[in-house]
């Protein structure tokens, strides 16, 4: 029996008058890999940013590991420790070395001794295949390397769930693969993943659920084979034809 790790019930969110998320229902089971796509402004980033409360929802309920996300700061901190996030713009800390970027949260949030945290950091740098960059600063790395450091930084907190917000959109084409390879490896190890991306090749390889969002709604949710071969909704069809035939 699969275990529900994320549950969204009738979630609504507004930016002032703009209704970004409309009655979103979503269940994510342990170990599931869900790829979310849709046109820009459809609410897909906002949805995953609600899951670690970088954005607050106004109506409905969000549970992560059984803990409900409310304004309660303690709950938010607990959930953030279990949910890692990778951003489009990497968001590495430019004033810290790669090693310090990764060991920062283990030291300050988990109160890990510095030496141990650095060992953890090195383990994950090896996992993303750039241990030799440990002492450099983010500005000295290529985009692909920076994003891999960002993934290692999230993993160092040993999260149960990983959220990816368009992780390859800011990368030059030749660097996309090195980041996707790391993500595929992570998926194979059984990580629960929610990925906002337009990399449909990646989606076909990794996803066990596809979600298509438009104008704040989940328009279609299906298995990848169903989704790509036999989309039900017209908007999905249009979107897929645009994205696959360019």
């Amino acid at each position, binding site marked *: 029996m699969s275990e529900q790790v994320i549950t969204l019930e009738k979630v609504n969110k507004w930016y002032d008058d703009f209704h970004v998320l409309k009655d979103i229902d979503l269940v994510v089971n342990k170990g599931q890999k869900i790829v979310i796509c849709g046109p820009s402004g459809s609410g897909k980033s906002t949805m995953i940013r609600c899951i670690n409360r970088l954005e607050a929802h106004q109506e409905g309920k969000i549970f992560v590991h059984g803990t409900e996300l409310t304004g309660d700061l303690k709950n938010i*901190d607990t959930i953030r*420790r279990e*949910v890692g*996030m990778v951003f489009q713009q990497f968001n590495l800390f430019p004033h810290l070395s790669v090693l310090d970027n990764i060991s920062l949260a283990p030291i300050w949030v988990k109160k890990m001794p510095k030496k141990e945290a650095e060992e953890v950091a090195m383990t994950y740098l090896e996992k993303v295949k750039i241990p030799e960059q440990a002492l450099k600063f983010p500005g000295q790395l290529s985009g692909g390397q920076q994003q891999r450091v960002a993934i290692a*930084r999230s993993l160092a907190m040993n999260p149960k769930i990983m959220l990816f917000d368009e992780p390859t959109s800011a990368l030059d084409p030749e660097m996309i693969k090195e980041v996707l390879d790391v993500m595929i490896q992570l998926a194979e190890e059984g990580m629960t993943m929610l990925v906002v991306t337009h990399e449909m090749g990646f989606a076909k390889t990794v996803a066990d659920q596809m979600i298509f969002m438009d104008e704040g709604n989940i328009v279609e949710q299906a298995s990848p084979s169903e989704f790509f071969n036999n989309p039900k909704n017209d908007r999905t069809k249009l979107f897929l034809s645009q994205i696959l035939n360019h």
Partner: protein
Amino acid sequence: MSSIVYSNKFLIWSKKNLFSSWINTLLTVLSIYFIYEVSVFFLDWAVFKADFLTNFRGERIIDRTFCSKNIEPGSYGACWAIIHVRFYQFMYGFYPAAEVWRVNLVFFLLPFALVAIFFDKVPFRKYLLYFTLAFPFIAFYLLYGGPSLTTVGTNKWGGLLVTLFLGVTGIALAFPLSIALALGRRSNMPIISLLCVIFIEFIRGVPLITLLFTANVMLPLFLPDGVSPDNLLRALVAVTLFQSAYMAEAIRGGLQAIPRGQIEAARSMGLTYWQSTRKIVLPQALRISIPPIVNTSIGLFKDTSLVLIIGLFDLLGIGRAALADMTWTKLYYEVYVFVAIVFFIFCFAMSRYSLYLEKKLKTDNSS
């Protein structure tokens, strides 16, 4: 050979930059003439035709009537003897001579307390920073007195001592206060942010003189009966509040330059607001804000001379007192030029430091 190449380079440079067109040539010639005239005039007055300790007859100058320019008007320049005679007051005010070693010791220790803050690659920086933290207490004990040191009331302090005390202490106290104000202004909590905005805008909207008068007159009203803080402390409060408002705006500029993603990344890893502020936001924001912080500090350092209107004798106040002395009266130029030079030395040093930092930050970021 190399000197020929060098002079050739200079010729090419000057042809390109100084004599590229007839109007440029005209401006160059006029500027050189102007610079020449002004420096000859000033050097004549300040050095070549000036009296230092003796006049042109070789007599020791003991009052203004001995100055060469007062004996033979028109043919002599500055009479620096007034600075020499009053030098002690210019440096220490009315600090008792028997205790003046204490002030000298503080002047001597001050650079050691500052060097670790200003430069990040000094030997023993860690230990120097401990010294920096201890310095305010050491300095206060030495200057004011305490166990086994005679008390020297602040009414005896004066001259450069007061100028440096107000400038350095004001800037040092304003720094943490301004960080709190800048963070408060950007806080999500409306009351805190409103209070910070009101404070900052009020202080920035009022001249320092007004604050000095207010602190002088009104501070005692807020304190319990019988507690009467001394004049220097009142001035220090005014100066600190004034500087903290300006510094807060400089720091706010730095805070605004930090992309939102930095905070989001820190928060998404479970760092609390204070942790992400301390480890991620402030280190980056303060680096950007250092040049404007130094700018406002230069402004404040000069503004400390306004304390003379509430009866404190800073460097300028001592100068005015010296001019009021009947035996030395009317030597305005000497006194004001001297005061200006002392202020210039400190402000120019700060300004060069700011330039050095800007260059350093640029190279650090491009690496």
